[in-house]
């Protein structure tokens, strides 16, 4: 199949492959480079000559397109071999090739530019991409505007391959969220022009599908660089989302998912719900209805990659968190029953498919990939424990699989499942059986499995499973494994044990014993030679023992106990098993600080707590320890010196300080010198007591261990922030050119005063490091960073009104002529909601006290005129304007409409009135559809108002009416109970018009004047308003104030405070329209 080789290139590659050694290869390459250089030089020389002299004759030295292509290919090959310096030929040759009209030459030109255009070591990513843009802009625009779709594709390939960045990576590199392109950049227009063009490719129905999928991917790349474009062009969003309705080309759909995920999770969450319905429908079609086109089956699995992508998008949508409220954006109650049903059946089918035995790895892998993606959704979709239990059991079963991949992924899925639910909560007894099977299995994996990454996952899962009732079992199990575990895993095990012990321990003795046991298992002090100061710290990070020290310092009741435990551990391990260096470190600190608390106590066993014994333990450890530990111990000895001036070991301490002054290690030498002076100089007593003053309590709240805990949280993803590109901050950046980053506080200034002596560590290590080692300094810096991040977060929180809107409430632009339908719905229970050339929307309102159901019917108007179906019909959004925290009404979509409408389809919207609904809280529904190739969007408001809950009272007499009218006046005097307004209608009315109007609204008309009387019009009615909280009686009087029946006075009295005003204004709105 592969034809058209370039001979010269092939023989060049052969030559290089046949080179005997590097030298020969070098020679061959240099030869070739010289050759190419001269060829290009002559080519241009001859071109210039020919243009100057206007000679038409073809020169021999002029290069043909084929030759140019061949030479460029050779250069690329040389570059790929690693000779990057030799190929600095500039961009002229490749750009010339790009300008060619021959496809393969153009293609080679683009390839050369993407490989040979190098980022200079000094330029930032932003500079690099802008440089590339400067070079390529002309070529890209030309090829995108070309009529040749193959050329369009090459330009789209180039954009996608070379402007693609990973936003997460940039975030961690830079201090704040930076975008490669911002509106105020000089070349923002260039980027915008390019994005515009790509957008039109992606959404145009006349462009070939295979070009569109490339355009969609390129568009995603450009949006990541320049999110400002999509934020200021929010009208693009519905068109992009309508890509989900491209159901015949699964390639285009697959390509669209990342862009749709980007928009729904990073730009605007308000489309999450409608997107979810479309995806669920799609998953159902592919997996259950078997409606996958033939060419997309892969080993008889329907489009596995698409299924996985769709499922993963579902997961991302469920994980979305509103940054401001901290609540999840989408919960099960937001979804309609069809969507939920679709998702549930997809999950159970995935589990079912993967449990059947299949032949062949590709099919097996594909099925399993779908299973693992689907199973993590169970937790979002099932209120019932049974389904979750089923999933947990299925995964536990897979832990016994012979395939390493399966075990690995099952562990991963269990972490997600258990980490996200409340499955491992203490009170949850529902899973006791599962855990009783699971936990021993995990211990087995931990000790037996041959893959260290499986062990790591097992550890993560145990960490996730741990709770207040099983922690002793789990921690002991892990500790048992610890001595046998792989070297690379030890550090992680230690940190997890430390964090769990701290988190769950209820008894201090248990905590200290466990932790000291843990660190006593590190490499023994003897094993790590004194020259290798990092001998043991690679196994158990310094964080672990530092944390123990912090906790002992902060908890008085632990102090004496820890001293005893340390002495006992050190005595036990004397002899062949040398003491671990970590124990020496903790011992040095703890005994130095608190040893005096136990000197006079008698041990239960053989241990000796005397000062002499304490000193000997540390002193014997000194010579077996690394330099940093020795430095610490010197400080401990200084404390011993201060505390026990009469003990026999005092001369040993002085001797040691004296020897240390000769040390080659600067730290030890300095300490030795300073401490010697403190002990021997006259009048130094007072200074000594200041220097050895008892250690202050630690103030840091967050354990430094958490930063080392690994990826568990990431896998679970529960704390994932929705990380919206915030339009508000972009606005800020626009107004103030410099990005609004708080300058980092000068190091140390933000630390609480109590930590002050501690901060000195960095500056004057020797004197003030009284008790803590050098490494603490780094620790402090980290805490500063944390504070910085926190304050930054707070900043963005404050600046943000509502992450999903533009900070200020956006003014919604509704479709023209929306008001007719709205006004009709205010008073009639059925009729036309909206009509244009493509659709007619009918409605019917069914009232049941505080529940109102709107039944909509969509009729395809184009069927009659053009004979086309409406396709891709979607409810993009159904947005209530009620407050989010305590809404006056709840709105929910009952069932989804059909996507393709030949004739008509229906959908329901259910409203629950919870409280008194204000008149400006009506919802807006956004619909989109295609009709004969044109994309349409409708934004319509329909009334949800309190008046609509009205039902008539039993028949009451005028006398009753009057009595109640007065009662309200007494109980709720003034504007609380009554509201009067005047209104002017468009048309003349008579008495029966008003009576019919009130009856239509649900009032029981108590009194009305006859038509055609000179006395004017007077109509009175009564009714009951409903909400879930309470019902209210309402009385209304409408009276004409002119002779022709156009001016009216409306008086409303109501038993609920403030309601009369709401009802009055609704009535006015009804009257003022035509009826």
């Amino acid at each position, binding site marked *: *199949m592969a034809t058209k080789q370039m001979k010269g290139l092939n023989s060049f590659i052969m030559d290089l492959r046949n080179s005997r050694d590097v030298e020969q290869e070098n020679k061959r390459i240099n030869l070739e480079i010289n050759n190419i250089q001269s060829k290009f030089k002559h080519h241009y020389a001859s071109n210039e000559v020919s243009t100057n002299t206007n000679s038409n004759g073809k020169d021999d030295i002029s290069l043909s397109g084929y030759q140019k292509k061949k030479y460029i290919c050779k250069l690329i090959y040389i570059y*790929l071999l690693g000779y990057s310096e030799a190929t600095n030929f500039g961009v002229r040759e490749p750009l010339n090739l790009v300008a060619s009209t021959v496809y393969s030459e153009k293609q080679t030109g683009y390839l050369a530019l993407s490989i040979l255009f190098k980022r200079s070591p000094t330029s930032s990513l932003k500079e690099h991409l802008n440089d590339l843009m400067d070079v390529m802009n002309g070529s890209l625009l030309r090829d995108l505007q070309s009529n040749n779709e193959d050329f369009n594709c090459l330009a789209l390939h180039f954009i996608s391959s070379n402007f693609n960045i990973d936003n997460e990576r940039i975030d961690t590199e830079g201090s704040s969220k930076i975008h490669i392109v911002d509106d105020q950049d000089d070349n923002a227009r260039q980027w915008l022009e390019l994005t515009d063009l790509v957008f039109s490719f992606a959404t145009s129905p006349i462009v070939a599908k295979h070009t569109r999928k490339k355009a969609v991917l390129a568009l995603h790349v450009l949006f990541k660089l320049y999110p400002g474009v999509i934020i200021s062009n929010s009208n693009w969003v519905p068109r992009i989302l309508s890509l989900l309705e491209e159901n015949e080309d699964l390639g285009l759909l697959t390509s669209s998912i990342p862009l749709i995920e980007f928009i729904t999770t990073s730009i605007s969450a308000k489309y999450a719900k409608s997107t979810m319905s479309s995806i669920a429908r799609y998953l159902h079609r592919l997996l259950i209805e078997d409606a996958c086109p033939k060419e997309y089956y892969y080993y008889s699995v329907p489009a596995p990659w698409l299924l996985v992508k769709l499922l993963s998008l579902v997961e991302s949508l469920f994980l979305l968190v509103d940054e401001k409220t901290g609540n999840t954006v989408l919960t099960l109650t937001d979804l309609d029953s069809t969507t939920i049903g679709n998702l549930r059946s997809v999950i159970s089918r995935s589990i079912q498919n993967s449990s059947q035995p299949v032949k062949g790895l590709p099919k097996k892998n594909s099925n399993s990939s779908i299973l693992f993606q689907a199973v993590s959704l169970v937790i979002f979709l099932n209120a019932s424990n049974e389904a979750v239990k089923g999933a947990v059991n299925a995964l536990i079963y897979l832990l016994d699989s012979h395939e390493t991949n399966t075990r690995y992924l099952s562990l991963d899925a269990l972490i997600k499942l258990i980490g996200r639910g409340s499955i491992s909560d203490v009170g949850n007894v529902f899973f006791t059986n599962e855990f009783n099977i699971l936990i021993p299995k995990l211990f087995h994996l931990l000790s037996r499995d*041959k893959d260290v990454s499986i062990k790591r996952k097992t550890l993560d899962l145990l960490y996730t499973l741990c709770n207040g009732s099983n922690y002793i079992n789990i921690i002991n199990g892990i500790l048992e494994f610890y001595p046998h575990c792989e070297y690379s895993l030890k550090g992680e095990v230690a940190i997890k044990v430390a964090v769990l012990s701290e988190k769950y321990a209820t008894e201090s003795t248990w905590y200290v014993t466990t932790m000291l046991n843990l660190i006593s298992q590190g490499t023994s002090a003897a094993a790590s030679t004194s020259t290798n100061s990092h001998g043991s710290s690679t196994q158990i990070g310094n964080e672990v023992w530092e944390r123990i020290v912090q906790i002992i310092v902060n908890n008085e009741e632990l102090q004496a106990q820890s001293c005893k435990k340390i002495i006992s551990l050190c005595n036990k391990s004397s002899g062949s098993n040398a003491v671990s260096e970590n124990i020496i470190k903790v011992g040095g600190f703890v005994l130095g600080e608190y040893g005096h608390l136990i000197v006079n106590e008698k041990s239960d066993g053989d241990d000796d707590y005397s000062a002499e014994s304490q000193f000997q333990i540390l002193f014997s450890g000194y010579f077996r320890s690394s330099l940093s530990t020795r430095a610490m111990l010197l400080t401990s000895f200084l404390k011993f010196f201060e505390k026990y001036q009469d003990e026999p070991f005092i001369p040993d301490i002085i001797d040691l300080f004296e020897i240390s002054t000769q040390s080659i290690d600067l730290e030890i030498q300095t300490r030795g010198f300073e401490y010697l002076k403190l002990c021997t100089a006259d009048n130094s007593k007072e200074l000594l007591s200041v220097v050895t003053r008892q250690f202050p309590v630690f103030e840091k709240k967050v354990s430094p261990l958490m930063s080392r805990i690994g990826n568990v949280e990431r896998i679970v993803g529960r704390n994932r922030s929705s990380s919206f590109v915030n339009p508000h901050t972009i606005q800020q950046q626009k107004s103030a050119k410099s990005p609004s980053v708080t300058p980092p506080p000068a190091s140390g200034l933000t630390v609480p005063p109590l930590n002050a002596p501690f901060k000195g560590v960095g500056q004057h290590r020797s004197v003030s490091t009284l008790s803590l080692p050098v490494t603490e300094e780094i620790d402090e810096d980290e805490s500063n960073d944390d504070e910085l991040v926190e304050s930054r977060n707070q900043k963005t929180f404050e600046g943000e009104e509502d992450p999903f809107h533009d900070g200020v409430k956006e003014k919604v632009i509704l479709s023209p002529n929306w008001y007719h339908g709205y006004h009709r719905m205010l008073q009639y229970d059925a009729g036309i909601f909206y009509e244009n050339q493509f659709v007619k929307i009918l409605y019917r309102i069914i009232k049941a006290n505080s529940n109102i159901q709107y039944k909509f019917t969509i009729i395809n108007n184009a069927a009659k005129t053009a004979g086309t179906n409406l396709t891709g019909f979607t409810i993009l959004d159904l947005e209530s304007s009620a407050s989010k925290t305590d809404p006056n009404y709840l709105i929910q979509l009952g069932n989804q409409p059909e996507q393709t409408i030949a004739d008509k389809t229906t959908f329901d919207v259910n409203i629950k009135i919870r409280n008194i609904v204000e008149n400006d809280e009506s919802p807006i529904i956004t619909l989109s559809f295609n009709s004969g190739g044109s994309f349409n969007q409708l934004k319509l408001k329909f009334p949800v108002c309190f008046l609509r809950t009205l039902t008539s009272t039993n028949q009451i007499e005028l006398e009753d009416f009057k009595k109640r009218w007065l009662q309200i006046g007494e109980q709720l005097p003034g504007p609380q109970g009554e509201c009067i307004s005047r209104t002017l209608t468009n048309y003349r009315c008579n008495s029966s018009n008003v009576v019919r109007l009130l009856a239509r609204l649900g009032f029981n008309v108590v009194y009305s004047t006859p038509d055609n009387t000179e006395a004017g019009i007077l109509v009175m009615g009564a009714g009951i308003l409903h909400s879930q909280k309470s019902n209210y009686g309402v009385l209304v009087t409408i009276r004409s104030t002119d002779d022709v029946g156009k001016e009216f006075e409306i008086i409303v009295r109501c038993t609920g405070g403030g309601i009369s005003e709401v009802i009055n204004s609704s009535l006015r709105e009804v009257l003022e329209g035509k009826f």
Partner: protein
Amino acid sequence: MAIQFILVLNRQGRSRLVKWFNNSYKPVEKNRLISDIHRLISSRDSKHQSNFIEYQQHKLVYRRYAGLFFIASINLGDNELSYLESLHFLVEILDVYFNEVCELDLVFNFYKLYAILDEIYLGGEIQEISKQKILNRLAEIDKLD
């Protein structure tokens, strides 16, 4: 972006195909990654170890075909098996396109590999999932000139 890069390395660590979907790597970093990853993967035991490695802030999924390692670096949240199988999909396409592909095909047709990749993946995402469509498109491109 799902795929940060795709590498095809032989057992000696020579790269036969290198495609960086993510452009934020610096040149020095790229070289270090390739040698690091080769060391990591070539030392693994294919019988008892999985095809996945958590590596820095990403995951590597890889599979060996004869003397070549096909490796993709994906995000931590991505589905390992899906991308592992996608590498197999790539290999199957190469196999048909080159009529029983071997390492030398990749060496001599290095420039074509990029064009093939551009039909399967784009911008670090999966672009097309139908084998037949991709092969048809590649045949079409070969006819152009």
